[in-house]
């Protein structure tokens, strides 16, 4: 029996790694990958709690979340492609049209 703390700790570590990537990376694809990491950290939590509570809903939602991650990745890559077409780069530092 693995204590739940370890699951949560794992997910927290993965989440933090994703977080780190999100904050420091400049390349759009890397950022998307970091986001995937964070989503999957959440999935780990969902499954772990579901398992501990003997309630399958959490696992179902983990599946849903994976599907959503696919959507997100698809849209994200599409946006990146559009940006690349427009600017010739996917370095997000140059995408600052939201600036004041």
């Amino acid at each position, binding site marked *: 029996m693995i204590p739940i703390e370890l699951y949560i700790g794992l997910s927290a570590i993965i989440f933090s790694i994703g977080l*780190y990537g999100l904050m420091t990376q400049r390349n759009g694809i890397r950022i998307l990958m970091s986001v995937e990491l964070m989503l999957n950290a959440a999935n780990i939590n969902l499954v772990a709690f579901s398992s501990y509570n003997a309630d*399958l809903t959490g*696992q179902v939602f983990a599946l849903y979340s994976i599907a959503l991650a696919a959507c997100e990745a698809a849209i994200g890559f599409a946006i990146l492609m*559009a940006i690349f077409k427009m600017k010739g780069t996917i370095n997000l530092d140059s995408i600052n049209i939201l600036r004041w």
Partner: protein
Amino acid sequence: MLNKEFSFTLMGVLTTLYKFFKPRILGIVLALLFLSVILVSVVFTSWPAVDQLPQNLDDPSNIEGIGLLIFTDLVVPFEILSIVLLSSLMGAIYMAKGDGDE
């Protein structure tokens, strides 16, 4: 990156490390901060001790349960999700396709 002047002097290592970490230091610190926050909360939370898991030791698989759940209780989110998936695919294709004249 560490090519031409491959020096093992302490100063050189430190400089290299500094150059490597300087743009990342804030990210690392914040990530560690967040991690520590979560870990501390996790550690200081008293989790209910669950004795038996999973219930059915004979058949550790719960695919069937999940499938049932998907098509009964959670069918509405499922349907919505399918629509979202579909539309996002369409959107992604539309965006990636670009203008027609290419």
